[in-house]
């Protein structure tokens, strides 16, 4: 029987499968369908300092093999999360608090608030920087480094994951920028910016016009970026983007990810994560792999 444990920044996960931020709430709804304590960790819905209402609807659209979303960070705020969900979720499994902000001060404040309360903090840096004319923090390497540095300064006890945006000129450069800014780990890819059009109405389907593209169709882009980023830095990498099954997850592990996140597939099949965990076990047992962590970066380039 394969050992599925992985260790990220000194924190042990019982397996490398993590539902991705925004697709899983704080875990309560999915826990009605299966015991979420079997997951390696849970990445929470993106949290901000204050509650946020998010964007107008429709917030979701579908295109071949992918979906687009523009939820706009609706969340009850970090204090509500700490008061209502954190203890419950911590008793279940490892907690990755996904956080977002509009200014560097926002990031520093929310990191300071959650320091020591969660197992990891994951920075969503795909948000518009209000002081930079709304350009996302995650696009230019100098901004990636700065937001990482400011967040890291606010943390004494909790390892920092920086979630990289694929909407960047050079993913390796941004991975190195996160590492240079003090990131303990990087995760990627966040969604690609896209648009879907309702030709009858001659309007974008999403009320927000554009949204983040995710789902099976983005997987080859994600695998390539994880491979490049993992080979650009020494810190661990969490891979995601279009994972639907254990075989997909294995691609990310071999490309250099120490763990994976599963997002859109939770909508297609609410039992996606447990099935992927079971599938990893079956595959490893069938291939004589004793420890899943031995597959991390096992890729041999042609």
């Amino acid at each position: 029987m394969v050992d599925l444990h992985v260790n990220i920044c000194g924190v042990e996960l019982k397996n490398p499968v993590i539902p991705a931020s925004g697709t899983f709430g704080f875990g309560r709804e999915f826990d009605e369908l299966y015991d979420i304590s079997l997951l390696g960790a849970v990445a929470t819905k993106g949290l901000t300092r204050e509650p946020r209402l998010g964007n107008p609807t429709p917030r979701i659209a579908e295109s071949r093999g992918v979906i687009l979303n523009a939820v706009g960070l609706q969340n009850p705020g970090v204090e509500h999360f700490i008061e209502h969900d954190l203890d419950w979720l911590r008793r279940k499994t490892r907690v990755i608090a996904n956080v977002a902000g509009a200014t560097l001060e926002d990031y520093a404040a929310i990191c300071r608030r959650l320091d020591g309360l969660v197992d990891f903090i994951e920075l969503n840096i795909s948000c518009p920087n209000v002081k930079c004319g709304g350009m996302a923090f995650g696009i230019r390497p100098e901004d990636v480094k700065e937001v990482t540095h400011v967040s890291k300064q606010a943390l004494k006890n909790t390892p920092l994951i920086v979630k990289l945006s694929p909407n960047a000129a050079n993913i390796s450069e941004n991975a190195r920028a996160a590492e240079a800014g003090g990131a303990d780990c990087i995760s990627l890819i966040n969604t690609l910016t896209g648009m879907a059009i309702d030709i009858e109405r001659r309007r974008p389907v999403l009320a927000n016009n554009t949204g983040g593209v995710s789902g099976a169709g983005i997987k080859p882009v994600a695998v390539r970026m994880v491979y490049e980023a993992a080979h650009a830095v020494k810190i661990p990498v969490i891979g995601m983007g279009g994972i639907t099954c254990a075989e997909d997850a294995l691609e990310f592990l071999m490309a250099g990810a120490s763990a994976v996140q599963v997002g859109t597939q939770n909508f297609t099949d609410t039992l996606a994560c447990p099935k992927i965990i079971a599938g990893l076990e079956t595959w490893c047992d069938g291939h004589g792999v004793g420890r899943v962590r031995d597959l991390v970066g096992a890729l041999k380039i042609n």
Partner: protein
Amino acid sequence: MRELTAAVLENVRIAENIYSLTFATEEAVPVLPGQFCMVGVAGYPLRRPLAVCKAEGERVTVCYQVKGGGTKSLVGYKQGHRLSVLLPLGNGFSLTPDMKRVAVVGGGVGVFPLISAIRAYAGEREISAYMGFRNRAAVCLRYEMQRADKLVIATDDGSEGYRGTAVQAFMEDIERAKPDVVLSCGPTPMLRALKNAVSGRNIPVYVSLEERMGCGIGACLVCVCDKKDGTHARVCRDGPVFEIGEVEI
């Protein structure tokens, strides 16, 4: 709510672009009137939220309008085809015992969730149903609608029944029907018209809302609606049924 595997028993056209899909789940699941399910379509990442018209033990019937590629694919699902289904979802209609006279006002595909209410309450409460369709070719589920004590079919072009909207038909009959409660589902303009028409009459109105959904279970915050108090409610989880005064329509 349960993640279930089901087998298609029947999938038939019942009106222009409208199909009735009956499937059998592995085991009987209790479904309240007004609840819905998410049905997976192979090749599409999002499941389709479909109102349950009828649930009898393991047999569940949903109706759907062919709108895009996903529902077009669903038409091809023949008897025996395996389906992945999340069921039952949402709150559904819930009536108190004193609500003896029930008016049901539906428009277009909004008729589907109301069928489950008519089926649940027929015989034990006095039901008056006002169901609006574009034209005669769009009218479906007559047999189910006729379970109501009184049924008015309304068509926009007058090709069948009352010429006009379901709300107009309802308002013309409201003094006779004297409803203790109104249950409704339909396009937003219809719900707005209903809201205006009954305002000041002090009759509770419950509406079932429709919205594009992600997970269907309340986790992703995709299908929200605006509440009167300035917050958001999740249509899939806190709804789809809301008291009409509670939400912005």
